[in-house]
């Protein structure tokens, strides 16, 4: 790899102080450090050796953990398309169609987001942080496949600028950037991200022939309907009567062959990602576990009340419908916007689980609860930490008086 190094060394002088491109130093530096870990050595005082980990490796671990969900999402996009149109298709056909539709969204998210990151790094003269590696993958996975690409770009730019850079960049943000992008689209372009938009039908969405009885509704939308319609059937019965038989069984929803955002449908593949995150120690198992626990407990609580049919939905169904699993594993665990203390993580996750189910059941106009639950708890995480830190201080003070 010497020629790459030589090439970089040759170009480097233009970007250094006094060179003709010195303003672009941090752009160059970001590319250089991707090719080569820098030759920096530890300072004369303080630790003389450093752990082999760096932020790039930490972030790429999360990206790798998302790949199972991404690949399954690509297949599922094709699968849902061919189910809706009634055409027969092989595994590869489904996957390739999905890839064709999903990859442009991924590329647009990365290009627009990294564009902003580089621009701001160059203007503000600081190194490009790696946080967007993860955000750029999260954003496509929580979009419907039919989302217009310009909206992806707009939402990404909005989220990076307003969600992160105005607070001072990576590590300083209050809200989860990817969720902010989605929330932005929800409130700015509601018609493009809700309703029957989850399945790609063809280039001219509305005019395509679909199979008889086809409905693109998600499991959450069906459940939400039961709240709106007085005297509705039990939700599970409605699931049984889905246009495609076996679509909304517990098993199929766990495996994820259902309509929904690109990466969120398969609890199974998300759990594989969770195993990667937990085994590598990158994602907090405390948060993941407590989100699921909170949702399950709240589901049981609603079962006990039973005021409407959604409340009667068996609690374990809450864990596989909608984006709960995806949110719990990849979103809630974002270390910057989550609670920073270990005790706080339990509380933070548990409240996310509870709020998700509460929002689902009480807000039928907007059934996806996990997004708002996480954003809400992002705001409350510093408060949780505040009390955990106060407890630590109090222990210290009490010791003094004893």
């Amino acid at each position, binding site marked *: *790899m010497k020629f*790459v*190094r030589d090439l970089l060394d040759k170009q480097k002088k233009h970007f250094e102080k006094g060179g003709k491109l010195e303003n672009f130093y941090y752009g160059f530096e970001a590319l250089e*450090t*991707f*090719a*080569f*870990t*820098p*030759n*920096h*050595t*530890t*300072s*004369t*005082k*303080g*630790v*003389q*050796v*450093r*752990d*082999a*980990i*760096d*932020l*790039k*490796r*930490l972030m*790429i*671990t999360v990206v*790798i953990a998302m790949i199972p969900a991404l690949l399954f999402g690509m297949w599922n996009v094709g699968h849902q398309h061919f189910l809706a149109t009634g055409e027969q298709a092989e595994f590869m056909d489904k996957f390739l169609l999905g890839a064709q539709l999903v990859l442009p969204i991924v590329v647009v998210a990365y290009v627009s987001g990294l564009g902003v990151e580089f621009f701001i790094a160059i203007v503000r003269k600081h*190194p490009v*942080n*790696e*946080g967007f590696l993860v955000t750029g993958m999260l954003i496509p996975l929580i979009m419907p496949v039919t989302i217009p690409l310009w909206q992806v770009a707009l939402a990404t730019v909005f989220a990076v600028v307003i969600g992160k850079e105005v607070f001072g*960049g*990576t*590590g*300083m943000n209050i809200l989860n950037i990817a969720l902010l992008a989605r929330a932005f689209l929800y409130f700015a372009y509601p018609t493009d991200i809700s309703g029957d938009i989850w399945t790609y039908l063809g280039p001219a969405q509305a005019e395509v022939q679909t199979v008889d009885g086809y409905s693109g509704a998600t499991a959450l939308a069906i459940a939400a309907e039961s709240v709106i319609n007085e005297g509705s059937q039990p939700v599970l019965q409605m699931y049984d009567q889905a246009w495609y038989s076996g679509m909304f069984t517990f098993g199929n929803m766990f495996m994820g062959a259902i309509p929904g955002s690109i990466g969120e449908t398969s609890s199974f593949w998300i759990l594989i990602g969770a195993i990667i995150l937990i*085994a*590598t*120690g*990158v994602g*907090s198992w405390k948060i993941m576990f407590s989100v699921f626990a909170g949702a399950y407990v709240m589901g049981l609580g609603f079962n006990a009340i039973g005021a409407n049919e959604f409340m009667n939905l068996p609690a374990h169904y809450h864990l596989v419908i909608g984006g709960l699993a995806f949110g719990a594993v990849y979103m809630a665990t974002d*270390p*910057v916007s*989550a609670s*920073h*203390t*270990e005790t706080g993580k339990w509380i933070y996750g548990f409240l996310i689980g509870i709020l998700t189910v509460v929002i689902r059941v009480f807000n039928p106009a907007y059934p996806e609860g996990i997004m708002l639950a996480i954003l809400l708890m992002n705001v409350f995480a510093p408060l949780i*930490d505040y009390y955990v*830190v106060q407890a*630590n*201080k109090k*222990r*210290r*003070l009490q*010791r*003094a008086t004893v």
Partner: protein
Amino acid sequence: MSDIKKIRKGFNINMAGKASLRLVDNKLPETVAIKPTDFHDILRPKVIVNVGDTVKAGTPILFDKRNDNIKYTAPVSGEIVEVKRGEKRKLLEIIILVDKNIEYESFPKHTVSDLKNVSKEDAMAVLLKSGVWPQIIQRPFGIVADPEATPKSIFISGFDTHPLAPDYDFLLKGQESYFQAGIDILKKFTPGHVHLSISADKEVSKIFTKATGVDLHKFSGPHPSGNVGVQIHHIDPINKGDVVWTINPYGVVQIGKLMLEGIYDASKVVAVAGYEVKEPQYYKTFIGGRIDKLIENNLNNPEDNVRVISGNILTGYKVSPKGYLGFYDHMISVIKEGSEYDFLGWIKPTSKRLSYQRAIGLLSFMNPKQEFKLDTNTRGEERAFVQTGVFEKVTPMDVLPEHLFKAIMAEDYDEMEALGIFEVIEEDLALCEFVDVSKHNLQEIVRDGINLIQYS
């Protein structure tokens, strides 16, 4: 014998190049240096000797104008050859040419049975005058103890868990009677206890187990269980307003020798360790001894490719191969200088590079018994704080390191105090700096915080 205190949090850095238990005593240094920078709170050093003066071991050469009864003395007899100053005339080193036969200043001599009749004031006066006093460190702040203060108790850690740490039993072999005498003197300074902590994980020699008049504690577990700060936290934590003293066993021996023999003996045994050393072993030298002879013809690579560190690789500092041993250090570590680029080093799988973490490609956790050859590369660039929860796992104290660091960076005095700045010094949080993904200089931050609290 007390029960064992188990430390669970922490991390051992298992480095290659441990010193074997062999003592070389014919490589004594030609010069020694006293470096005021080794003492955190010398703000206005005043040199009281001139180049060309001759001094004896124990002759005062330096004091701090703010606290002029603590004398810093010559560790050897000989001629002052240089007073080195840096920018803005900052005093860096006072260098002494070592005599062939060391002459000592004489101080009052006592027999073992006499010791109990020595008054606290007399003992203190001779410690201050002879140059032994700076061995006593005060917490909070980790500075040379203030003779006016009365410590709540005194803590001694009888073992070192740092990477490649020297074996204290070997360093102090044959000094049992001095150690005991030192303890007897120290007991006069505190109305409380003298706590001595030893390792429960390995055989401990009689120098510590036989000591009387101490509260003996046993600690087991990974580094930093040997850090006196961690031990204090688990035995009798420091609260606001408390003052405790800590002292290394070597300092205790020096006190004992001073009282029994009437001399300031600054000879010490140091470990020269690290995988760049051909024969890692122990050497006899003096406090502040010049390093060159110890590593001459003893390195695997040329001098400019290695880093010579006075102290261990977590808390020590870089010195030139012709530099001098730090006042408090008992070892010299020599490791490779890591100034190399690494192609795709941020994703390449590696089992040779140690990591506390297990992110993709970091495989060192699969073979923890392996001896690592870590170099000085930072393995990445400085970033904002992102990861949470890892500092806590390597800090076996009830403090929240991340919040403490942030309080210091924000210069929030109340918050620093409430979060436990009084309980820590750099070495206690050195592992945080090692494991930090974002590569901050956290030990420097801790010292900044201590300075803010101390001098405000």
